[in-house]
């Protein structure tokens, strides 16, 4: 793990006069209408710490699950600009459809929380968001959300529309997205003093998702 000093070296800018402004621009990224610091900001893509390939190798070391691997590879192609959000959405929804159908027979309660598609949001999608700071990559990931929500409704084996116990429809309501992104994308990477949000308190009865944290710590 890098210490404070190392971290500072990532965020340090060449000229002291530019430092604060460029830092600010790197925080707010492309959403800020700031042209004069754009080059400094893009030069400090703070969290693009490793290539997608080596990231993928780490993922492979940590999971043997073929559905997750397929989703990982699809996301890697998407953020690299090699695949469209539409195609990626098709691959991902296809990858998780059969596991969702079999999860339907699990006891009611938290069966969807533990389903692989819901894990995808917390473990895979969130990790891609956290590791990509460029506006382009983030835009592709946003477009992927839109495209997943536009996929034709998933059907159970009896032909009825697939929903969670709370009635969220696969795929158009993106079941699990907000909960898992909030919990694992935002909360899990927060410093301890920021971990006491109402949402976390509500989810404390759920088992911890160790995978994401382990992967995260290894990549820092």
């Amino acid at each position: 793990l890098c210490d404070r000093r190392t971290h500072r070296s990532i965020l340090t800018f060449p000229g002291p006069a530019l430092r604060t402004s460029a830092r600010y621009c790197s925080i707010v990224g492309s959403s800020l209408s700031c042209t004069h610091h754009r080059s400094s900001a893009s030069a400090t893509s703070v969290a693009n710490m490793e290539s997608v390939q080596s990231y993928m190798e780490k993922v492979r070391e940590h999971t043997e699950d073929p559905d997750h691997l397929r989703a990982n590879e699809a996301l890697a192609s998407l953020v690299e600009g090699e695949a469209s959000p539409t195609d990626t959405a098709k691959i991902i929804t296809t990858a998780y459809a059969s596991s969702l159908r079999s999860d339907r027979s699990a006891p009611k309660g938290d069966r969807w929380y533990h389903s692989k598609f819901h894990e995808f949001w917390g473990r895979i999608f969130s990790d891609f968001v956290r590791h990509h700071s460029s506006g382009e990559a983030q835009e592709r990931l946003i477009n992927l959300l839109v495209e997943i929500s536009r996929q034709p409704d998933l059907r159970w084996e009896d032909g009825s529309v697939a929903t969670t116990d709370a009635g969220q429809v696969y795929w158009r309501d993106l079941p699990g997205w907000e909960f898992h992104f909030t919990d694992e994308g935002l909360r899990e990477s927060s410093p301890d003093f920021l971990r006491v949000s109402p949402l976390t308190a509500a989810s404390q009865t759920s088992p911890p998702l160790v995978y994401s944290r382990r992967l995260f710590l290894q990549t820092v």
Partner: protein
Amino acid sequence: VKYLAQLPFLLNATRFAATLLQRGEFASAFPTEASFILHMALEHSYDEHSNYLAQVDDDEWEALLPLVAAWLTIAGEAIYSHCVSDDESDGWGTWEVQRWEEWKKQLEKFAKRDDFNEECRGIAAQTLGKMIEIEAGHRG
């Protein structure tokens, strides 16, 4: 200080969430998240010893202020328009113009605090500038 190493990742996730919040897409959980960070960073009284945030050190400000900047700059327009509207039926709950004003006051103080490093002061000043810009845009 371990969490500063995680800050770039948290910041990326926050920027992503703030972008969705600004667009109003797949973002129903994010008003709560933004509200939480803004509350932790900007709504405490720092003079009271009873508040543990009175003891925050530089490192914690270095983590908090970039998150505040990301929420208020990227999603600032959405946040402001909810603060000035009286509609509480849209899931945004306690967003009020008094809160917005309080954030501005705190950021103004932070921009002048000697015990903050230059980077933190700069982020506070620029976030404040953006908020004033948003207000002007809303009026005009």
